[in-house]
């Protein structure tokens, strides 16, 4: 039995660790006076937030915005992280339903796949608000998001203005199959399609990843003697592409536009290396989600879609 003793010890260790982290999250919300259990028994309402991934600063900001609003309004916020896996998200939401939370905010990994999750909440009569990405089905009280298609249009128009309607453009796409990649590309290509002077000479996925943005751009630079602008579906790829362009010594000929306005990208815009980046306001999205959640819990009516402003950050 000696070996099982070892197993028991390590398992207990693992769970004490788990308990510690639980303690940590309690502390974070202690100001609102909740007890140890996720669904508070003292009458405090609980809001569940199923987030697509916390490995990305954008969604961390969104979560922080929601947390801030929840703290202010006296709600307990329970956050689950789907790690970009649609099936984990369905399980996450089912788990929230098991916890009998009062309201569920869902930031879908995918609009089509999330329907099952929304319906699970619907069946339990828990109101659902979608955040950042929408759901293709089920009953959703309201959808709160910045419009990625509009953001793509914003980037396209900026490039169009800079190039005076004439030029060759490279488009670095996000992870194929994600709605952000689809929508940003759609808005951008709407603008390009309307301007016969603009031409997309290369279009390749670099998976929202900086290292891939670098290597994909290196290849494109080899293949394309003439490039006037690069539109990347996010800043990570934009910054990777920028490195490739610098290494090739073509930074004076090519303008790069990113998306998301991450801290690195905003710094690059200030330094003048990145031409512009489209800023979403994730903190505001999270905040508005909880604030409108309060209205829903109070039985007030809310709009079906609540758009959150996008802005172009340029020098």
């Amino acid at each position, binding site marked *: 039995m000696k070996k099982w003793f070892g*197993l028991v010890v390590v398992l207990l260790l693992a769970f004490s660790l788990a308990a510690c982290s639980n303690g940590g999250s309690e502390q974070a919300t202690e100001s609102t006076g909740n007890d140890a259990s996720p669904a508070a028994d003292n009458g405090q309402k609980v809001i569940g937030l199923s987030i697509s991934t916390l490995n990305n600063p954008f969604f961390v900001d969104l979560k922080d915005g929601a947390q801030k609003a929840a703290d202010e309004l006296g709600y307990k916020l329970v956050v689950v992280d789907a790690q970009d896996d649609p099936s*984990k998200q369905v399980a996450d939401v089912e788990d929230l339903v098991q916890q009998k939370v009062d309201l569920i905010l869902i930031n879908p990994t995918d609009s089509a796949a999330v329907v099952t999750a929304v319906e699970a909440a619907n069946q339990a009569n828990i109101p659902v608000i979608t955040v950042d990405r929408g759901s293709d089905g089920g009953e959703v009280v309201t959808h709160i998001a910045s419009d990625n298609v509009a953001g793509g249009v914003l980037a396209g128009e900026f490039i169009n203005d800079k190039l005076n309607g004439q030029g060759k453009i490279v488009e670095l796409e996000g992870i194929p199959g994600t709605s952000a990649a689809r929508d940003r590309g759609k808005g951008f290509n709407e603008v390009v399609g309307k301007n016969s002077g603009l031409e997309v000479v290369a279009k390749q996925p670099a998976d929202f990843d900086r290292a891939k943005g670098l290597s994909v751009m290196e290849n494109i630079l080899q293949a394309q003697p003439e490039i006037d602008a690069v539109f990347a579906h996010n800043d990570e790829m934009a910054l990777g592409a920028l490195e490739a362009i610098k290494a090739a010594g073509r930074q004076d000929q090519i303008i790069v536009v990113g998306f998301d306005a991450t801290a690195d990208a905003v710094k690059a815009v200030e330094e003048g290396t990145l031409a512009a980046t489209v800023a979403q306001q994730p903190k505001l999205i999270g905040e508005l989600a909880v604030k409108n959640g309060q209205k829903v819990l109070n039985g007030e009516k809310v709009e079906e879609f609540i758009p959150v402003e996008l802005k172009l950050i340029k020098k």
Partner: protein
Amino acid sequence: MKWNKETIQRLGPLLGLLLIGIILSILEPRFLTVSNLFNVVRQVSINAILAFGMTFVILTGGIDLSVGSILALVGALVAGMMTGGIDPVLAVIAGIGVGAILGGINGVLVAKGKLAPFIVTLATMTIYRGLTLVYTEGRPITGLPDEFRFLGRGELLGIPVPIILTFLLFILLLIVMEKTTFGRRVYALGGNEEAARLSGIKTNRSKIWVYVISGMTAAVSAIILTSRLNSAQPTAGFAFELDAIAAVVLGGTSLAGGYGTLGGTLIGALIIGILDNGLNLLNVSSFYQQVVKGLVILIAVLLDRRKST
């Protein structure tokens, strides 16, 4: 039953599952409710079915990294067929056939090509994922017929259909593994391939079949997942092979092959599912969840190493 070393090893995964279950029940009362337990098992079904096929492969001393990609490709093809107007029943049968073929390609390359399973399935993992993206053009396929939803979301006598399917598949594969000569060959192959060959076993044929089984279980998982999500995702099943391998290893199957059981794998999959669910209910941050999951797998591998020495 004697409490010898082997008994303890066989009961190890079950004791682990019970231990985790007890700890979670104490920490979180909502864990041990009928609705939550149904909830967990329904969530587990996809990984469990993948892991059943993986058990056969690992028992021969192989590995199948391509199951997540097979899942995505079969899901996309089945969804594509149905939205194209093909009868759901036919589409499902065709999907399982495609899974068998994709697994068979792995098997032939491993057996006839004498290539390392790790490399073969790493390559086909990439190829099958690529084909999925080609077929779906990177978009999810939606608009599936209503009756198809039954497989992933329906209930029979109050029991979720995925749970019933998992159970039926478990029984079927258990019979194959424990009661057929093929099953005995699988164990023999993993125990000592050369000895198996010399004793007249057609090792190549058995090897191909284990990958066919793995492909077929991946296809069944694909069908349940597609139905559960009511859409086929081009990114579906990403990194699922790792959870399946983890379930097999947690279930006490030796990565060196030759030793292990299907029941152990089922328990391994339940351990992973219960950890995910329990830590969610406990409101543990997802980052810590990964740490805990990794620790549990590490312990299982450490025990596996002791077993083989």
